[in-house]
């Protein structure tokens, strides 16, 4: 039997989603950005939203998110993505608007924009990539860097006496009445990736139904920034990040819980 004989539709178990371009990835080996991008693309395709979605890219490693996720996109200034998304959503209330932001972008320079978008109950979705480090600029300490964790700007490990403690964004935003759906998931193994996809789906459903602000925090790897191999980074995430950032549902508004997805 020749190889081409098995290439037929009934044998297809895995393909590039429609919402995903065929651009070669610029991400490092072991990075979970690609997984997160793909999940967003899959969900938008499954919900039939590709032609009514506008994405807002951040500053950080995902600055080129629009090279991969095949929808209308704008590129924000560092941390300002939720404000930019607000501007778009207020002009196009019937479109789907999402931001895709890292921890430096969302929890440091863009903290005010993030918190106030949630407080307003802004009907946008945030995909929040938490890898505890600044990836693009070369591995500096992030607002989510763990105590004792070595980075290029905390070379002796994050000293909580002088450099403070990590911020748990999902827990914090869950206290706001404007938040409809705020959860934390992880991308370190297939089972968790499936759960992450389900959460991303629920977040976009929250927006489509006009139920307020939604955010999915995704614990992610940065093997280059952490200085470990791709495989080790998955283990490191599981062993160190999950205890510091527990997975779970931090805010599911009753109206969101009532959605049948």
């Amino acid at each position, binding site marked *: 039997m020749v190889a081409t004989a098995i290439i037929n539709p009934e044998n297809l178990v895995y393909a590039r989603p429609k919402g995903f371009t065929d651009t070669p990835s610029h991400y490092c080996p072991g990075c979970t950005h690609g997984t997160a991008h793909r999940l967003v693309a899959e969900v938008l395709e499954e919900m039939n939203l590709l032609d009514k979605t506008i994405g807002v890219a951040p500053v950080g490693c995902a600055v080129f998110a629009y090279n991969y996720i095949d*929808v209308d*996109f*704008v*590129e924000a200034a560092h941390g*300002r993505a939720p*404000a930019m998304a607000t501007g778009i959503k*207020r002009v*196009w209330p019937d479109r789907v608007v999402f931001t895709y932001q890292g921890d430096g972008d969302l929890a440091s320079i863009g903290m005010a924009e993030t918190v106030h978008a949630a407080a307003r109950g802004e009907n946008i979705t945030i995909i929040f990539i938490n890898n505890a480090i600044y990836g693009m600029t070369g591995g500096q300490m992030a607002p989510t860097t763990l105590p004792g964790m070595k980075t290029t700007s905390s070379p002796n490990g994050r000293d909580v006496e002088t450099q403070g403690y990590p911020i748990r964004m999902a827990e914090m935003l869950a206290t706001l009445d404007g938040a409809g759906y705020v959860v934390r998931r992880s991308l370190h193994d297939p089972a968790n990736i499936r759960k992450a996809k389900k959460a991303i789906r629920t977040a976009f459903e929250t927006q489509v139904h006009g139920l307020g602000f939604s955010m999915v925090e995704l614990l992610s790897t940065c093997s280059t920034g952490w200085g470990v191999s791709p495989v080790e980074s998955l283990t490191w995430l599981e062993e160190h990040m999950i205890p510091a950032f527990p997975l779970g549902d931090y805010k599911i508004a009753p109206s969101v819980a009532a959605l049948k997805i």
Partner: protein
Amino acid sequence: MAREMWKGNEAIAEAAVRAGVEAYFGYPITPQNEVLEYLSRRMPELGRAFVQAESEPAAINMVYGAACTGARVMTSSSSPGISLMMEGLSYIAGTEVPMVLVNVMRGGPGLGNIAPSQGDYNQICKGGGHGDYHPIVLAPASIQEAVDLMPVAFDLAHKYLNICCILIDGSIGQMMEPVILPEMQPVVRKEYDWAVSGAKGRKRHVLSSIYLDVPTEEKVNLRLLGRWREAQANEIRFKEYFLEDAEYIVIGFGTAGRIALSAVRAARALGIKVGLFRPISVNPFPYKRVEELCKQAQSILVVEMNTGQMLKDVETAVRTRVPIRFYGRLGGVMPFPDEFVHEIQEMIKNPGKPEDDPADLWYQRMMAR
């Protein structure tokens, strides 16, 4: 078309509504608060977007997002708030999307005060944000002129895919005068081939100000410059008063220009052949017209409520053809017409030489007072 008493900031807000503004994002700061307050009622009434943002950086980035849809969008602020918006303004210029900015200047630097000033001429005309970009800046001298320029500002922003700023100061924002407001225009959202709306039945649109490829970024800069040169060629606006037989010319913009008109009238009553040139487009600046005026002027008096920021543009145009005298008041101090009349008389008595430094001589006089 009734003449009605309107407060400057509220008239400007209503004029923006009538010019078809679809979305407004702002943050409270004196002396522009009434723009925000007025629109917080008016925009929702018309089903249009209004958000009081958490900060000026958030407000300008909401504008940035909304501008990417091709809608008519605006914000308003005052000096310290405009400083906070500079990052967003640079991104908006770099992304080539249109917006209108109302800048109600106050005394500075720093927290300064809430009195009228023209100290932010350089900030808005000469940059402020990073990179090579040139916003269009219109400086009305009355509430009527401000409301008349509002639809023009949106037209220019959309024609040149640029920032168009209405530059006024706290006195125009806060005072009341009779105005005739422009007609209500319907909201028309143009279908731009770059705007984001969800890629239904077309190729997707991506809007960004990032060009990692250096030669491409150079091309983008040249494209911005090309559009700016078009604006320089086509969008010069100014007003002239008593210039037909004028031997002496006063140049001032906005409120200083308006006070100068009173001074010029008073000087005329004294038999002095003096006229007023008032730039309305301060960016692009009417260099050519100022250059022409050198043919008839024995000397020129520049008046401003700053340390001589527009003076540099006048000097660029005059190029030591005729002597220039400068008079400025600072920090929120409003000059009286009498002060300008005195300056006109002093200029005639002692015109000085074309190569004198008018800002230096003014500083010496100020310190000797």
